[in-house]
C-alpha cells in the first residue's frame, strides 16, 4: 500500500507538471514576437500569397486557443506535428537526434553517478587529507571556468595540438561519427562512435562527477557523525564496512533525489557541449528550431526534454522510495 500509493502520488504530480509545462511552452512560445512566416521574410522569391497559403496550411491563421486545442488533441493521439522546416514529422526529426543526446547524456549521467558517488565517498572518508584539499580545489577551479571554454580547450588540445606535436593519437573536433562510417560494419563503427564521444563526454562528465561527488562528500561527512556509525564501529566493523554498509546508503538518499535536478542541469550543459563539439543532439536541434520559429519542432523537443526530466525525477523518487524503507512502509 505504502509504496504503491507513493508511486501513484508521484505519477500524478509528474503528469500534472508535464501538462503545465507543455501548456506554458505552447503559449509562451506563441506569444513571443516573431512567427514562422518570417522564415521567408527576407526571401523576395516567396510572394505574399504563398506565405498566406503556408500559414493557412500550418494552421497558424487560427486563433491561438484553437491552435492549442488542436495541439493537445494531436498530442493525445501521439502526433507531435509536422516540422515546417524539415518537412518531416516531428517525431522523425526528434527520432534522429534523440539517440545521440541519449547516448551523450545517458553515458555521462551513468558515469557521473557511479564515479561521482564513489569519488565523493572516498574523498569524504579521507576528509582533511591532501586528496580532499586537492578535490575541493579542483572542484572550485573547474566550476569557475565556463563549460564551453573547457570544451574549446579540449578541442584545441586533444584534436589539434596532439597532432601538431606528433603524439600519434587525437580526438575528432566535431561530429558524432566519421562520414561514411555506416559502411564499415558494426565494431569499427562502434569504436568510431566512442572515439567521437570521448571529448564531449569527458568535458560533460568531469563537471558532473565533480558536482555529484561534492554533494556526496557533504552528505557523507554529515552521516559519519551519526550515532549508528558509532554503533557500527562498536560492533567491530572495519572502516570499509562502516563506510559502504552503513554510511554509504544513507548518504546516497539525498543524492538520489538530486537526480532529477541534475538531469535538468545536464540538458542545459549538453546544449553548450553539443554546440561546441558539433554533436547532433536534441539540444542543438531545439536551439536551431527556436530561432527559426519552427513551432511544432520546438514543442516536440520541449515535450521530449521535459518528459525526460520528469521521467528522471520520477525514477529518482521511486528509487528513493525503494531504498529508503521509511517511505516504503509508512
Amino acid at each position, binding site marked *: 500500500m505504502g509504496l504503491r500509493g507513493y508511486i501513484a502520488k508521484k505519477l500524478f504530480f509528474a503528469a500534472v507538471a508535464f501538462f503545465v509545462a507543455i501548456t506554458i511552452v505552447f503559449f509562451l512560445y506563441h506569444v513571443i514576437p516573431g512567427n514562422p512566416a518570417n522564415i521567408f521574410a527576407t526571401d523576395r522569391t516567396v510572394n505574399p500569397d504563398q506565405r498566406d497559403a503556408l500559414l493557412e496550411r500550418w494552421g497558424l491563421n487560427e486563433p491561438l486557443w484553437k491552435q492549442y486545442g488542436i495541439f493537445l488533441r494531436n498530442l493525445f493521439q501521439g502526433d507531435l506535428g509536422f516540422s515546417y522546416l524539415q518537412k518531416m514529422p516531428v517525431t522523425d526529426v526528434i527520432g534522429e537526434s534523440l539517440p545521440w543526446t541519449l547516448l551523450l547524456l545517458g553515458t555521462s549521467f551513468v558515469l557521473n553517478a557511479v564515479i561521482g558517488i564513489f569519488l565523493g565517498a572516498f574523498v569524504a572518508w579521507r576528509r582533511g587529507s591532501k586528496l580532499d584539499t586537492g578535490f575541493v580545489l579542483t572542484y572550485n577551479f573547474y566550476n569557475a571556468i565556463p563549460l564551453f571554454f573547457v570544451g574549446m580547450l579540449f578541442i584545441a588540445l586533444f584534436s589539434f595540438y596532439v597532432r601538431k606535436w606528433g603524439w600519434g593519437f587525437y580526438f575528432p573536433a566535431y561530429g558524432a561519427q566519421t562520414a561514411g562510417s555506416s559502411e564499415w560494419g558494426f565494431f569499427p563503427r562502434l569504436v568510431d562512435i566512442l572515439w567521437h564521444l570521448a571529448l564531449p563526454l569527458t568535458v560533460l562528465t568531469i563537471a558532473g562527477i565533480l558536482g555529484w561527488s561534492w554533494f556526496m562528500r557533504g552528505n557523507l561527512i554529515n552521516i559519519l557523525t551519526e550515532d549508528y556509525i558509532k554503533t557500527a564501529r562498536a560492533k567491530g566493523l572495519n572502516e570499509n564496512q562502516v563506510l559502504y554498509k552503513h554510511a554509504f546508503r*544513507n548518504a546516497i538518499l539525498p543524492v538520489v533525489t538530486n537526480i532529477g535536478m541534475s538531469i535538468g542541469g545536464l540538458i542545459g550543459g549538453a546544449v553548450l557541449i553539443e554546440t561546441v563539439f558539433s554533436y547532433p543532439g536534441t539540444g542543438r536541434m531545439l536551439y536551431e528550431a527556436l530561432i527559426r520559429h519552427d513551432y511544432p519542432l520546438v514543442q516536440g523537443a520541449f515535450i521530449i526534454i521535459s518528459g525526460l526530466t520528469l521521467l528522471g525525477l520520477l525514477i529518482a523518487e521511486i528509487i528513493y522510495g525503494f531504498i529508503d524503507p521509511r517511505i516504503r512502509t509508512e
Partner: protein
Amino acid sequence: MALLEVKNLKTYFHTRAGSVKAVDNVSFKLGKGEVLGLAGESGCGKTTTCLSIMQMIDFPGEIMEGQIIYENAFEVITENPSKSFRDRIFNRNVENKKRTKNLLEFSEAEMRSIRGNHISMVFQGAMNALNPVHRVGNQIQEVLNIHEPELEKDEAWDKVIDILETVGIDSVRARDYPHQLSGGMKQRALIAMALVNNPDIVIADEPVTALDVIVQAQVLKATKELQRKFDLSMIMITHDLSVIAEVCETLAIMYAGKLVEYGDLRTLFKEPFHPYTQALINAFPSIAGPKKDLYDIGGFPPDLRNPPSGCRFHPRCSKAMPICSKKEPSNTPIKNGYVACWLYEEEEKRK
C-alpha cells in the same frame, strides 16, 4: 579478580582554545559479573571514558596516558600486526616486542576483534543508534558475520531470532526496519545487538534516558535479567541515579573529568562521602515516601578547557576549605572504594 582495569586514564580533546581534559586520571576496576554505574553530569567525561576503553575516540581526541588492562586480551592478539590507517593517525604502538594485556597497545585490527565480540556497547537508542536503512535483524546478524564468519547464514539468523526473543522482541520484528519499532523495542534491539556474540563486558551509554517511564522500567528489568542470565560485566553510564540504584552494584561518580567517588552502591547511597555525591543524591526528586525539599547544588559545571585549580568541585562545594582550591585531593580509601576529597584526606592524616 578484575576483568577490566582502567588505570590513570587520560583522554584529552585538542581544540584551538586549548586541550579539553575530558577524562583526567580515571581509574577503576570491573569484576566478572559486576555492574558498575558511572554517574555524573553531562560533559563530565563518562562517555569519553567508555569510548576510550573501546578506543573509538575520534579526532581531535587523543588518549594521552594510562592503561586499560583487559583480562582476556591475549585471546585476540594476532601474530603479525600490521599498521592500519587509523593506527597511523593515532600513533598506536603495535610493533611492541612484549605484548601486555593493555588494550591501548593493541592494533586497530585487534581492537576490531574485541569490539562487539569481547566488549560491546549499547548507545542511546531512541533515534539514531540503529541504521534506518537496514533491517533490525540484519544489523544484529552483522555482528555475527564479522566475528564468526564460519557461521552458516541460517544458524546466524537463528541466533539473531534467539537473542531477540531473549530481550523480549517478537521474532517477526526481526525483518522490520528501525522506524517501525517503538522506542523501547529499538533499545531492546540494541541490547540484543550487544549481546548476540556473548561478550564479556557490555558498556551501556544512557540506555534508557530517552524512554518513557513505563518502557524504561520494562527495559531496565530486561537488562537486569539478562545481566544475571549471562553473568555479564556491565558498565552503565547514566546521569540518572535512580537507574543506577536499580541495576548497579558498584557506583562511580565523575565530576569534570575526574572520578570523585567510587565504591559499593548501597554504602554510597546510604552514606555518601563526597559532598558532590551527597548533593547529587539529595537533588533527586523521588516519588516514593513523603515529599521532601530538594537540595540545590547551586553554581554551574566548570569549563574543562580551564578547570578550577585544586579540587574541581570546590567552587560549588558547601564544605570547601582553603586547601581545596590549592591542591588536588588524592584518592582516599573508604569502605570498598575510595573518595577524592580533602575532608577525608585530612581525617586520614589526622589519624
